[in-house]
């Protein structure tokens, strides 16, 4: 019941938002619904409801381990959305608010989906619900980005649907009764038809990998993140990609149960490292700091994928990384949004000296950049270190070396760009726009809190959280 509440509360909010008459007060629905959602999530986190056997939806250990991060991220983005939409009051926010709430509801559904088909439906719906968010700016560039997002994402979605069918057929071929819940599929395990399972894995990985933004299916990401408002970027990078990742984790568990875990892990490792490599190469040269965040996101998706490939310790680190990446990336997107607005431009050729114009956002941006490049004591440091340790534990020394090499190049690219924007003498144009968009508490606090939570996650990871992650890992990586 509460599971459904998590989904329908935001959807209801979306409906209300669509009907709400006042442009001025509508944005307040976001933090209100967000706060309720967060409260409910954390209440459920503390008192997880019992799982119904064979249920299609459920607040299972994996949902419990990941959903609170998404909910928190949404809450802070929602808080940020009020001043943001106030600034952008020239445009109607009806669709924006409704779609944002819709995304939250569908994300909750996707995280809780314990059924292959339902999972697909939720993910697809999230993809579509995000479309109005992407072109909120209404510029030709935004439409171009949306178009690419739709078609590349749609292709990925189509592939994952095909993969889902294949997995279903594998179950059918193996004598299954057509029950496509993950529990049933896992139970069927070795009974699944192997060729179909492998085909399904390839298609599902490519499909959900597109959604996650793993290279080479990541091409929509820089466009979408670059053109969308900061909050949307934060939610896409921290929430939507997370759903796709949990989907891959769930499917991997089925494949592993069917006896093809090593193959699945190898592909995950390969695609993860490849994503990191591609991201690192792009980061080395990119001059646009919003697209930089997108490539950084590709890199972190790679990290998640590598972590998932490295057994239970790696998966633990990966789930840890979901949290630390969501929160830290959120801080980066929001502070980056502040900088973007104040600067009036977003490439290092046009922007410099933002430490003078927006000192607080610049400080958060730099700190967030350091955090996201695994600088202790922020969350990503611990989770990435966990991945490396897992690599050594599973004797993947070469993978660890490549992992670290990509981190290094990504660091070069990120620091180069971020310092170029923050340091130096501010441009005249930026001084002008900077006056129009002064930093207020309401736009600084949300990213600051996100950053603070990333720090808190690093230095004092709550024991309950660790236990929740461990439980999720036990669910997905049963000890042999």
């Amino acid at each position, binding site marked *: 019941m509460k599971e459904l509440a998590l989904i329908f509360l935001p959807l209801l909010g979306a409906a209300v938002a669509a009907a709400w008459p006042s442009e001025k007060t509508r944005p307040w629905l976001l933090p209100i619904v967000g706060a309720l959602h967060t409260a409910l999530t954390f209440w459920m986190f503390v008192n997880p409801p019992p799982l119904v056997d064979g249920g299609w939806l459920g607040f299972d250990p994996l949902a419990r381990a990941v959903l609170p991060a998404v909910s928190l991220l949404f809450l802070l983005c929602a808080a940020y959305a009020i001043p943001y939409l106030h600034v952008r009051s020239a445009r109607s926010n009806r669709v924006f608010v409704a779609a944002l709430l819709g995304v939250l509801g569908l994300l909750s559904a996707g995280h809780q989906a314990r059924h292959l088909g339902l999972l697909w*439906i939720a993910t697809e719906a999230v993809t579509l619900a995000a479309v109005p968010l992407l072109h909120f700016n209404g510029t030709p560039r935004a*439409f171009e980005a949306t178009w690419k997002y739709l078609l590349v994402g749609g292709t990925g979605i189509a592939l994952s649907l*095909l993969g889902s069918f294949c997995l*279903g057929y594998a179950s059918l071929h193996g004598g299954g*009764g*057509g029950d496509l819940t993950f529990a049933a599929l896992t139970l069927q395990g070795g009974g699944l038809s192997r060729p179909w399972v492998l085909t399904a894995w390839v298609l599902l990985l490519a499909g959900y990998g597109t959604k996650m933004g793993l290279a080479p299916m990541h091409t929509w990401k820089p*466009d979408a993140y670059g053109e969308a408002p900061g909050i949307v970027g934060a939610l896409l990078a921290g929430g939507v990609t997370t759903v796709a990742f949990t989907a891959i984790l769930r499917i991997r568990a089925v494949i592993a149960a069917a006896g093809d875990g090593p193959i699945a892990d190898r592909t995950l490792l390969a695609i993860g490292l490849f994503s990191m490599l591609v991201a690192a190469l792009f980061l080395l040269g990119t001059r646009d700091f919003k697209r930089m965040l997108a490539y950084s996101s590709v890199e972190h998706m790679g990290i998640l994928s590598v972590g998932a490939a490295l057994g239970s310790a790696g998966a633990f680190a990966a789930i840890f990384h979901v949290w630390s990446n969501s929160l830290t990336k959120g801080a980066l997107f929001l502070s980056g949004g502040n900088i973007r607005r104040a600067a009036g431009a977003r490439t290092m050729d046009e922007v410099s000296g933002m430490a003078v114009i927006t000192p607080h956002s610049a400080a958060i941006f730099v700190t967030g950049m350091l955090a996201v490049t695994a600088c202790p004591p922020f969350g990503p440091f611990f989770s990435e270190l966990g991945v490396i340790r897992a690599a050594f534990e599973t004797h993947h020394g070469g993978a660890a070396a490549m992992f670290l090499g990509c981190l290094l190049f990504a660091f070069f690219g990120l620091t180069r760009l971020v310092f170029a924007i923050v340091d130096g003498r501010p441009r005249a144009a930026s001084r002008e726009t900077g006056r129009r968009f002064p930093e207020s508490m309401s736009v600084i606090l949300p990213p600051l809190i996100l950053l603070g939570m990333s720090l808190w996650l690093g230095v004092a990871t709550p024991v309950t959280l660790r236990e929740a992650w461990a439980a999720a890992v036990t669910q997905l990586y049963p000890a042999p």
Partner: protein
Amino acid sequence: MGLNLLALASSRLPSLIGAVSVQGIALGVMPLLIEHELRWLVLLVAVATVGLKGFVIPTLLRRAMRTANIDREVEPSIGFVPSLLLGAGGTIAAVALARALPLLPEHTGSLLVPGALASVLTGFVLLIGRSKAISQVCGYLILENGIYLFGLLLIHSTPLLVEAGILLDLTVGVFVIGIIVDRIQRAFDSLDTRKLTVLRE
């Protein structure tokens, strides 16, 4: 499957849309042929499919085409002959691939799997090889048709609720695509996706 090749060979948008529409109708009728007993849900799905895929979406596309006032040439970036060959090769490959995968006895004879795979491949060829936004949408539709065709394999076992959900999603997806196509047309005054290359690197 012939329709796929027709779609590949179409040099004009209306005929491409037509091919898609016919394929949609055929697809919609399929469950009725496969199912032995007519359940009302199956019927509903079939009707919805035929309606949407066969009529609504093609109509939408035609209207978009008309309002966009674009010339009706398809302007391939992969030529017609190569794409035909690719499509034919894809079909052969699909047949071969389908043979490599084990099928349940009741499906062994049917052309469902190779047909589905061939459609998927055709969809990809269209998506990759055509530059007009509308022809890409057609490609996407053919891709989804292929997947839908494949889904028919599971029609016995998967609950129709899921099928319905999937169908709904697809439909909404296509609607959204249509809306964006419209917006792009207004923003760029063109539906040539080759102009959509501002965002790079």
